[in-house]
C-alpha cells in the first residue's frame, strides 16, 4: 500500500496510526535481524507519536495526508534526544540537542518516525559496507549490497519496513541505492531542502531527499520537506510550489523533450542496463515524449572532479571531530594534539580516513592549483554543459548505475572499482540539478534504475515524466518476496 493510500484510510479513520505503526514495527522486528536496515528503532516513541495523532483525529481535528504515516530517517540527520551516529564510532554516543529542519518538518506533518537507518560512515560509500556497525542487505538478494550511502533507507522502503524514508545524496547516495533496491529516490535541486541538522559531508553537494515505492509518494514527501529555511544560508528563498497536487492534476507529457547523453551509456555501463533504460525511453515516447541522442562531454571528468571536491570539503568539515566537545575521545590520549590524532585514528574507518587524506592533499600548498582549483574550473564546465543541454531538452535520461547490485565484499577491497559505480550519478550534484531514480526493469531478478535529470528547481517536470513512465509500464508495483526464511 502506498503512503498516500495509508493517509486516506487514516483520515477516514478506517485504520488508526497506532495500528499502522505497530504493523511496521512488527515487520521490522520480523525482518531486520537479517536485513539490518536500521541502526536505531524507536518503537515506544513512534507508538506515542502515533497515539497523539489518533487522539487528535478522534477529537475531530482534520489532519494532513501524511499525519500518522511512518517514515525512516537516515542516521546522519539530527533527531533530538535520539542517537545520530552517522554509522561512525566517533559519533556512536552522540545525542543531538535539536532536530534537523527536515525532521521538524516531518513532525509538523505529524508523521511518525520509526527509527534511524544505516549508511556508509559519514555517507562516504556506495554499499553500506563502510558502516562501522554492519552491512545492510539488499532485499532482492541478501548476499548483495543495497547500495549506498543511504542503503538502510532504500532497503527499508524496498522491504516494506517503512513506507517512506529520507536519505541524503552527495554524489548519488539516494539515487544509487534506490536503483539497486528497486524503489524511487529523489535528490532535489541544491538549495531546495534545508541542510540544517544534516551532518555535513561536502556542503556544496549534499542534499536531502525522499525514498518511496512510487513517484506520487516521493512527491508527497518532497512537499513536506522543501522550502526556505533561514537556518541554512544556502537554502533557496524562492517560494515553493507543492508538486503533489500538480502531479495528480496533470499526467500528460506530450511534447516533452528527452535528451539521451551518450557518455552515460558508455563508461563501463552493462549493455543489458542500457537496453532497459532505452526501452524505458521508448515507453515514454509511446505516450508522446520526443527523444534524441546528445552529448555531455565533461562527463569523462566526473569521477576525478568529484573525488577532489567532495573530499576537500569533507576534510574541512570533519576537522570538527577532535575529541574535545562531543563524540569519541581516545582514552590513550597524550597531550591535546595526541588526543585529537588518537581520537580520529580510533573513531574513523578506513574510507573516511582515505577521503580526509585526499582532501588534505588536494588542498595543501603546492597542489591546490593542480587539483582543487582545476576541479572547480571543471565544475564550471559541468554547469555550462548541462545549461546548454537544458536549452534543448526538458529532461535527460540515463542509467542510474552501470550494473545491478553487486555482491557483498565484491568491491570492498578496491575503492576505485567501488567509486566507478557512481559515474552516472556524480555529474548531477556538480551542477546542483534534481535527479530521480525509478525502477525500469530487472536483470536476473535484480532491479535496474533509470535516472531522470531536470533543470534546477524543475522537480515537477522530472516527476511528471517519471509518473508517466509508471503509468505506461506499471513497474512501480513490484516488491521483493521476503517472507519466511530467506
Amino acid at each position, binding site marked *: 500500500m502506498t503512503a498516500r493510500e495509508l493517509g486516506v484510510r487514516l483520515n477516514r479513520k478506517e485504520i488508526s496510526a497506532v495500528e499502522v505503526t505497530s504493523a511496521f514495527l512488527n515487520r521490522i522486528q520480523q525482518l531486520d535481524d537479517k536485513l539490518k536496515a536500521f541502526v536505531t528503532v524507536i518503537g515506544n516513541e513512534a507508538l506515542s507519536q502515533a497515539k497523539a495523532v489518533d487522539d487528535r483525529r478522534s477529537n475531530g481535528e482534520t489532519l494532513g495526508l501524511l499525519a500518522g504515516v511512518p517514515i525512516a530517517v537516515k542516521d546522519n540527520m539530527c533527531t533530538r534526544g535520539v542517537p545520530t551516529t552517522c554509522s561512525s564510532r566517533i559519533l556512536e554516543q552522540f545525542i543531538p540537542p*535539536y532536530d534537523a529542519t527536515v525532521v521538524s518538518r516531518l513532525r509538523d506533518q505529524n508523521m511518525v518516525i520509526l527509527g534511524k537507518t544505516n549508511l556508509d560512515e559519514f555517507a562516504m560509500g556506495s554499499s553500506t559496507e563502510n558502516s562501522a556497525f554492519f552491512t545492510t542487505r539488499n532485499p532482492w538478494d541478501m548476499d548483495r549490497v543495497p547500495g549506498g550511502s543511504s542503503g538502510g533507507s532504500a532497503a527499508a522502503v524496498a522491504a516494506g519496513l517503512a513506507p517512506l524514508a529520507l536519505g541524503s545524496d552527495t554524489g548519488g547516495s539516494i539515487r544509487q541505492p534506490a536503483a539497486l533496491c528497486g524503489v524511487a529516490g529523489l535528490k532535489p535541486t541544491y538549495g531546495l531542502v534545508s541542510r540544517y541538522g544534516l551532518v555535513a559531508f561536502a556542503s556544496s553537494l549534499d542534499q536531502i531527499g525522499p525514498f518511496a515505492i512510487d513517484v506520487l509518494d516521493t512527491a508527497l514527501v518532497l512537499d513536506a520537506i522543501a522550502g526556505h529555511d533561514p537556518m541554512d544560508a544556502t537554502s533557496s528563498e524562492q517560494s515553493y510550489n507543492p508538486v503533489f497536487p500538480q502531479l495528480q492534476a496533470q499526467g500528460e507529457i506530450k511534447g516533452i523533450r528527452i535528451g539521451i547523453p551518450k557518455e552515460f551509456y558508455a563508461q563501463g555501463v552493462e549493455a543489458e542496463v542500457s537496453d532497459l533504460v532505452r526501452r524505458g525511453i521508448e515507453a515514454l515516447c509511446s505516450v508522446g515524449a520526443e527523444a534524441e541522442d546528445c552529448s555531455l562531454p565533461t562527463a569523462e571528468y566526473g569521477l576525478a572532479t568529484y573525488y577532489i571536491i567532495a573530499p576537500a570539503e569533507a576534510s574541512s568539515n570533519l576537522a570538527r571531530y577532535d575529541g574535545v566537545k562531543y563524540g569519541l575521545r581516545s582514552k590513550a590520549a597524550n597531550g591535546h*594534539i595526541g588526543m585529537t590524532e588518537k581520537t580520529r*585514528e580510533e573513531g574513523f574507518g578506513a574510507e573516511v580516513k582515505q577521503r580526509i587524506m585526499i582532501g*588534505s*592533499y588536494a588542498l595543501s600548498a603546492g597542489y591546490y592549483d593542480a587539483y582543487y582549483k582545476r576541479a572547480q574550473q571543471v565544475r564550471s564546465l559541468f554547469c555550462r554543459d548541462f545549461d546548454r543541454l537544458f536549452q534543448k531538452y526538458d529532461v535527460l535520461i540515463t542509467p542510474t548505475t552501470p550494473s545491478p547490485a553487486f555482491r557483498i565484499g565484491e568491491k570492498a577491497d578496491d575503492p*576505485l572499482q567501488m567509486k566507478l559505480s557512481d559515474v552516472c550519478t556524480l555529474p548531477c550534484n556538480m551542477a546542483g540539478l534534481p535527479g530521480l531514480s525509478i525502477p525500469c526493469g530487472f536483470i536476473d531478478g535484480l532491479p535496474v534504475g533509470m535516472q531522470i535529470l531536470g533543470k534546477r528547481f524543475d522537480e515537477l517536470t522530472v516527476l511528471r515524466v517519471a509518473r508517466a513512465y509508471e503509468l505506461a509500464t506499471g513497474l512501480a508495483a513490484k516488491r521483493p518476496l521476503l517472507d519466511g526464511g530467506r
Partner: protein
Amino acid sequence: MALTTEEVKKVALLSRLELSEGEVEKLGRHLNDLLSQFEKLQLADVTDVDPLAGVVASSNVFRDDVSGEPFPREEMLVNAPEVRDGCIIVPRIIEG
C-alpha cells in the same frame, strides 16, 4: 606522480590522523590509485574558466539581530567526553 611513504605520513599529520604502518602502506596505495585518475583533469581545457565553489549564487546571508534562547547547558554537555563543574575538561595546553 605517486606519493612516497614520507608524503603519506605528512598528509596524515595535516589530517591529524595517527596512522599505523599498515595503514600508511594501504592508504598510500589507495591514494595513488585515485591520484592516477586525477591526472585526467589536466587534459580539460579550462582556459578562461572561473572556478566554481557552489551552484548557489554566493552572497552573504544575514539574519536579523534578535536574541533567542540558547541550548540548555546540561543538554549540550551530555555529549562532552569529560565534564567537571559544568565545563569541558581538556588536556593541558600551556605548560607552567
